[in-house]
């Protein structure tokens, strides 16, 4: 800190506006707007010193090139395309990109030296011994993003950690926005009721479904467990998670294997949670895996099947996102 006399006066707002606001213009195409609307509020922006952003979401490449590092919040599918499509100019010099730790295998060999990994950690975690007062379940109730079978599996997993008696005591909130966008067939097909039924059957009948505005205006979620159902297919680091964790909610305690990763930095994102940044020791890991091969295929297949079904498919989706998927499937002779 500079060694100076205490200020006589300070100016408010002018400097802030000059330095921050005027450089903050982003333009979305119509297709990107549809995609963002679909993912709202999960893909909403938030701020951290790691420069988090969403791919295909109006991220201004010019802005990104000004930064030494940036953190991609996207999930499996957009990230796979990113490594296939993006120019290596983006990682020229010392520039680093940070992706979620779960996606280490997506990083092509020539990108490896410029890729770091993040994981989001809440200071408070919950398990059998430490039971929350409130359980918050969130996600997009959509067959592609949250397979109903996987959803039931996740609920059963929660049921295996907490007893029926514990669940009975807990207040359970569920937030599953259901939107009409025609990205994957008609909105009626994204049937919220079957997810609600799974909730009632696997947890309990007394579940509240608050609106987003109500959740967003609540500032205190201490002693609440946050569970997101989407398994990071499109969004890995969601705004909704950021919001709940920054207001005191915690995650499930998990056993994890980090022996191939070295912690290089811990960046607090709020008083209650942090992002941990890791380097990966590739000598201990398997080689790069083409995300469009092998066991990741089912996720891609689901999208293709939805996109090519007789149902109405939006023109924007067809032109923009679906075309990426089809290109790779066609190349492999799968469609």
């Amino acid at each position, binding site marked *: *800190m500079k060694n*100076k*006399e*205490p*200020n*006589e*006066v*300070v*100016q*408010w*707002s*002018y400097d*802030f*506006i000059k330095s*921050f*606001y005027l450089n903050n213009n982003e333009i979305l195409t119509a297709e990107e707007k549809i995609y963002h609307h679909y993912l709202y509020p999960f893909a*909403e*922006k*938030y*701020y*951290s*010193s790691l420069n988090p952003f969403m791919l295909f979401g109006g991220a201004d490449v010019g802005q990104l090139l000004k930064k030494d590092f940036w953190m991609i919040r996207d999930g499996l599918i957009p990230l796979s395309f990113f490594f296939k499509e993006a120019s290596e100019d983006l990682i020229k010099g010392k520039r680093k990109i940070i992706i979620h730790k779960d996606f280490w295998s997506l990083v092509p060999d020539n990108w490896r030296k410029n890729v770091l990994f993040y994981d989001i950690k809440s200071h408070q975690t919950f398990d059998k011994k430490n039971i929350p007062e409130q359980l918050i379940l969130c996600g997009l109730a959509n067959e592609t993003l949250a397979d109903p079978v996987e959803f039931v599996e996740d609920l059963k997993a929660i049921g295996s950690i907490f007893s029926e008696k514990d669940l009975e005591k807990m207040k359970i909130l569920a937030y599953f926005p259901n939107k009409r966008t025609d990205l994957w067939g008609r909105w009626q097909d994204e049937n919220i009721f079957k997810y609600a039924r799974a909730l009632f059957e696997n947890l309990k009948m007394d579940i509240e479904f608050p609106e987003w*505005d*109500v959740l967003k*205006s*609540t*500032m*205190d979620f*201490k002693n609440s467990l946050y569970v997101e159902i989407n398994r990071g297919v499109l969004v890995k680091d969601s*705004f909704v998670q*950021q*919001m709940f964790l*920054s*207001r*005191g909610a915690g995650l499930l305690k998990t056993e994890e294997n980090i022996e191939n990763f070295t912690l290089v930095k811990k960046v*607090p*994102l*709020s*008083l*209650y949670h942090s992002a941990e940044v890791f380097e990966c020791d590739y000598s201990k890991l398997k080689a790069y895996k083409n995300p469009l091969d092998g066991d990741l295929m089912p996720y891609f297949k689901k999208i293709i099947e939805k996109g090519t079904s007789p149902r109405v498919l939006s023109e924007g989706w067809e032109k923009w996102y679906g075309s990426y998927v089809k290109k790779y499937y066609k190349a492999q002779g799968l469609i």
Partner: protein
Amino acid sequence: MKRLLIIRSSRQSFWGSCRVISPNLQNSYQLLASPECEIKFFDISDLFLKDDALKDGNYITDLAQTLRDYNPTEIIFTDHRPHPYEILIFLSMHYPLKDLPPLVFHLYGDFTFFAQSWALIGEKLKGHKIKLIVASESQYKLVKNFSNSEVNIETFIFPVDEKDYYYDHDERLETRRQFQIRDYEQVILYSGRISLQKNVDILISEYAEIFKNSVFPTKLWIVGAFDDHGANFQGVVNYEGFMYAKIHQLLESLPKEIASSIRLWGLQPKETLRKLKNAADMFMSLSLYHDEDFGMSPAEALSCGLPTLLTDWGGYSSFTSKRWFCNLIPVELTKYGHQLKVSKMQEFFEMFNLAFINQHDRTKWSQEFLKEFSIRSSSQKLKAILDKDYLEFQGFNWNLAYYSNVYWTLLHGRQLSIHLNPSSDNFYAQIYQHYISGKNI
């Protein structure tokens, strides 16, 4: 005999301070109940249109029926949401507005945010007997500037619940012991939202400048939730996480011994907040929030007898008095925005040290403040306001129509505005100069 019908929201406000203000205000009204004054509450959902459509109830027809059955002598709107305009406009389909008894509206900081609705109410209720009750002297001047006549405006500062906030010396000693604060250490406290316009970052920087070489061991406690509302009306939009990152980076940039003396407490329940206020030695807030009509958190601090330093801005200016210890930091509007005379912090601190404040001072200041602003004493003030004659409303003037238009465009456009960015040279100054009292205390 008076029959007051109080229309209130059935749900808590999303604003933290209104969650306290609203019940305190209702309790003050409740105390007016007597053989000469009957009180009836009518609860309405802030989403009454949606609820009416989805549920069995019908708030508006129920309200019309209540008016016919109860035949109130006055109708009082105590909450900021649902907006009285929404209620009245739908009520007019079931009950002629001209047949309504005199109306009382409590105005909140969002008067400017809902300027459009107030401008519309102004048209509907011209000639009707009404009282607009504002929450501070500054808001009085602001609303007067928007009105054709001040005869309908009354000032009533929201009450503090004396059961929640008071000075307790034993609690002070116990809390300081619990958090290992030595007797000679001084604790400066800020409580409230940590948002852009509350200037907590400036408070921290100035604290660091003043105390980096100070011989007085001092701590700064910041209590409250981070809030990224930004300054919408100026087109400044913050993203979630921005304020935390800003404060965190600021703390990282400070010398270790200064940074370690600053503690972020996060959001705390009111019992803990009272304990912290009792344990602290001073309260400071440099807020320049554009809708700072009142100031619940300084009011609670003053209820705990805390020597307090506030910006001369909005409702804060109303808290100065010789009966308790509350000073103001001068604020000026320049063409570049607000200018805060932060050197006042140093003066305040020096004055504090010369005053040798003891438990008797704290107790006296707490009692004096509560004598003025407790729920019980506020109830008497309300009675005095309601007992005054109701006069016909002269309507709002062109300022409000123009302001609402500019404001509304900005809220949706997310742009900078030459009209409403803080400056001494534009329309902003015409409106918000009233938020600066110029009191030199």
